[in-house]
């Protein structure tokens, strides 16, 4: 029992978050085990990204508790929060690459800020990441010169360059064509298996969920209405879940 408790890397309990008069999260709870790849599914604007941003401390919920690797995120001082963030990678919906820096500088940025790595090691790590995402040729390009899919890959490479234990993906396949979206999903799966990453992915792309998810949570009305594996939810009798899964069944 205790061992199972220690196995939980992200523990979200009864989290409430609202903006002005709008209640977005109304008592969300989830536990993510080490090495697991959990997916949050839900319609646009339902609060999926709000939960992800609350986990990494970008937003502060009004109520509830969020423990990441045993540390209570809500109310954590900036210094401690930053220490915790060094173990977390975050892939943004539109990649959020620093547009005044080249691809190389974007990837170097976390290493220069938080490691003592020398020039040679930094260059080696940058090219290693670019090889993993298949974009070695883009090393000296500016973000504005990249396509949407390339930006997502570089965003992914930047998120995992420090080898974080946890990676949070915010709509990793949004705005991509089905073929590129599938490639990105398979890349995420392969990187997670290779580096033993624990992850939460927010998406409304069922194909992405099918490829990468160990556990899926359905967010609706501010809470998780249902959870289970892809196959379990596909067979669900619940009308909302059925409506969601009808697209792929």
């Amino acid at each position, binding site marked *: 029992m205790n061992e199972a408790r220690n196995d939980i890397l992200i523990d979200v309990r009864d989290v409430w978050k609202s903006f002005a008069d709008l209640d977005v999260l109304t008592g969300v709870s989830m536990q993510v085990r080490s090495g697991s790849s959990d997916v949050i599914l839900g319609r646009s604007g339902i609060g999926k990204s709000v939960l992800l*941003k609350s986990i*990494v401390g*970008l937003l502060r919920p009004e109520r509830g508790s969020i423990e990441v690797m045993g540390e209570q995120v809500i109310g954590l001082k*900036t210094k401690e929060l*930053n*220490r915790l*963030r*060094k173990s*977390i990678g*975050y892939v*943004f*919906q*539109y990649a*959020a*690459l*620093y*547009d*005044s820096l080249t691809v190389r500088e974007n990837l170097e*940025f*976390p290493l220069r*800020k*938080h490691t003592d790595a020398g020039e040679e090691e930094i260059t080696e790590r940058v090219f290693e990441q670019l090889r993993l995402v298949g974009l070695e040729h883009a090393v000296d390009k500016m973000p504005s010169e990249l396509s949407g899919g390339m930006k997502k890959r570089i965003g992914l490479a930047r998120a995992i360059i420090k080898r974080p234990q946890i990676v949070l993906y915010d709509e990793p396949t949004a705005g991509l064509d089905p073929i590129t979206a599938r490639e990105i999903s398979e890349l995420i799966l392969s990187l997670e298996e290779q580096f033993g990453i624990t992850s939460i992915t927010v998406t409304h792309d069922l194909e992405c969920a099918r490829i990468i998810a160990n556990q899926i949570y359905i967010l609706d009305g501010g809470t998780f209405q249902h959870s289970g594996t892809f196959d379990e939810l596909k067979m669900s009798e619940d009308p909302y879940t059925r409506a969601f899964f009808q697209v792929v069944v």
Partner: protein
Amino acid sequence: MNTLQKPPHISYYALTRSRIRSAMDQVYGITTFGLRFFRYVFVPPYEWGQVRKHLDELGSKSLPLLTIVGVIMGLILALQSRPTLDRFGAGGFLPAMLALTIVRELGPVITALIVAGRVSSGIGAEVGSMKVTEQIDALEVSAVDPFNYLVVTRVLACSIILPLLTAYVDFLAIFGGYISEWISSNSSMQLYFNEVVQSLRFYDVLPGIGKTIAFGYIIGVIGSYQGFNAARGTEGVGRAATSAVVLASLNIIFLDMVIIQLTQLFLGAA
């Protein structure tokens, strides 16, 4: 049946109250944002690389425009003042008058307004664009403090570069005045600059250059504040850039008035 409904009536009083409240909120926001700079600037990590980069971008790229403005400002001032001074038989005071006007007032204020127009809008747009594309969030989740990395570096660069640019513009404007004198009366350069140097005292130069540090701080803080608070996509970025210029220019003029009063109070009006 007419389905169009009249918009709800908002009284003039309620509208004015809401506008005053919004303006006060902004004043409070900018003040606390600006004061935060002093809390961060002395605390590591120091981003000297970023400060150097901004010094280059803000400073050297403003030089061509400031060069033209500086020379023309001196030229026009001399051309306009010469007939009036001659009417009172005071044409010989022209170099001294030019030097005092430029060093004490016109040089610092014109330089600050031009830099505000070029730089403050640039900072507002750049930081605003980073805000709406989640780059500021990306910095934060990378355990890098966005205020230290984006704001402190820019405010510091503006405060360092503006006095240097002002000294440069002052010199060019005085030189522009000489060009006008040389064209109209073929006067000697040595005589002109002797007059200029003799007319300027330490207490004329110090407040003139010194207040530009405060102007630089205003340009950096207001540009960054508007960028940090940009919302609603590209429209918000455009609005951030525009309001950065307007607010920075207004604040420069207001602060200049306050500094003049204080200077006269403590250093005398002469």
